[in-house]
């Protein structure tokens, strides 16, 4: 009697669990197709007052960015929670350099992301390594022969390609260039060199004034 009761209870639990698991699986399968349409395969940051540029990038990439929730990303969040897991990484914000010419990005809390802060960008979740990083900030693409700057830091730590501005750049120019660059790289599925060249045809100031620079491999943003 007692054994029978145990058997009965075990069966009941087993069946209930099976039904629950099947339902969860069904739910995941049904939602998978929908969620995959905007898979966060890239990470995107617009630091106040540059959210407008982040919004146009989000529009192309479906990147994980929401001005209301990720407003003012802190230095630690960017270094620990964003850079190590992003496949395509994009930052729009202020940039600067120290008196000896080492460049940095300014995070939402005012913290400086220095070249030595860039973490290991290899072996991230389902991606082998970061494919492309673009820091749309003044002097983010200015390498110095006598020291490691942001371009070298990204490439040395695993990014296959990196883009940044070698000089100070007006927001109007960066905004226009960025809009076109992602259009060509995502919507027209061009490699980054082609996308940059095509965007420069429409925004030549990006070269003559901001001095946009591309480093590393000629990657495709569309896998």
């Amino acid at each position: 009697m007692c054994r029978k009761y145990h058997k009965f209870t075990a069966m009941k639990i087993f069946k209930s669990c099976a039904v629950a698991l099947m339902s969860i699986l069904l739910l995941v399968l049904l939602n998978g197709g929908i969620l995959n349409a905007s898979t966060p395969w890239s990470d995107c940051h617009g630091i106040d007052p540059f959210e407008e540029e982040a919004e146009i990038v989000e529009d192309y990439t479906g990147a994980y960015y929401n001005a209301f929730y990720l407003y003012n990303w802190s230095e630690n969040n960017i270094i620990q929670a964003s850079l190590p897991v992003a496949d395509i990484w994009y930052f729009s914000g202020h940039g600067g350099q120290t008196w000896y010419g080492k460049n940095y990005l300014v995070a939402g809390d005012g913290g400086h992301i220095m070249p030595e802060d860039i973490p290991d960008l290899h072996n991230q979740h389902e991606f082998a390594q970061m494919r492309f990083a673009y820091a749309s900030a003044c002097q983010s693409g200015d390498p110095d022969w006598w020291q490691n700057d942001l371009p070298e830091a990204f490439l040395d730590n695993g990014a296959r390609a990196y883009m940044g501005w070698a000089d100070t750049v007006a927001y109007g120019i960066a905004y226009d260039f960025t809009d076109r660059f992602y259009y060509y790289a995502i919507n027209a599925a061009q490699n980054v060199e082609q996308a940059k060249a095509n965007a420069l045809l429409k925004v030549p100031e990006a070269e003559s004034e901001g001095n946009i620079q591309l480093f590393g491999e000629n990657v495709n943003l569309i896998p």
Partner: protein
Amino acid sequence: MRIKRMKLGRYSLIVVALLIVAVAGSYAIADFQRDRESDEVASARHTFECLDPEIVDTEVSRPEAIKIIEKIGYKPNNPEFVLIRDYALSKTYWEIDWVEAENSLFFDIDAFTGEILGIFDSSTYESKPEEVGLENAPEIAREKIEEIGEFPAEAGEPSVERLEEEDGEVFYRIFWEQKIEEIPVVRGFMSVTIDPAGNIRYFSKFWQNITIDTKPKITEEDAIEIARQKAPLVDLPELLRERIDIAENIYANLVIKKPFHPLDENQPIYGECSLIWEVIFENVEGGLEPTVSFVALSIDAHSGELVGMDYTM
């Protein structure tokens, strides 16, 4: 038997209920995603827009655009078309691209005038004896432009640059900035990159067709004073406010441009083209590589109104 049937019925009910929950959940998430995506599309202010050629009427059709390209010696093979309305460059054009022997070719053809606005040609040309050098590059570039369209009569002296690629390939870039009565037109330009044999590799001509009163009604000093008075009234982030407050140099440039509206989401990203005093609040930071940062307030040179702004990143 009856108990078994009852149990089966109960399990079936549970399964059906869970299925309903799963389907309802999927739709709820899909709705959320759709809402979020439509919000994003509405909030992102792009500098250009892709139009539906089935809805927008153009003077130049797709076959006509192809004929224009063929006329200058190209043979588009299975080309793709995108119709673009460019807010920054004030043009509506066909962007036509195709691949030829693994090389990408892009053309921009004005959808209303048929003018060639852009060429991107990544083909590899057979090497020929060098014909182009720094000295004759502007003249050769001009001849090449005249072969594919009209050379603007008011184009002044261009800047010439010799570009050497990593693989040793050399190009010459010749650039004309548009000016109306010596006043620069922001985003008005013509640029051509030719190889040493004189082949056009990149070309863009966004020469603006503008009729504007070039006599400002307010002086540079007035514009600076207006900018100083209006700056505190603008809702600026702290960093930009600080830049204005501690500016080392304040000066104004007279330009013709579409004012930029980065911070006001309720306005289109660009305003109407007008004569503008661009009042610059500039700071210079020292060090091994001095850095210049600024906030620019755009003051309409006729009305004295603050119509836009820009700043370094």
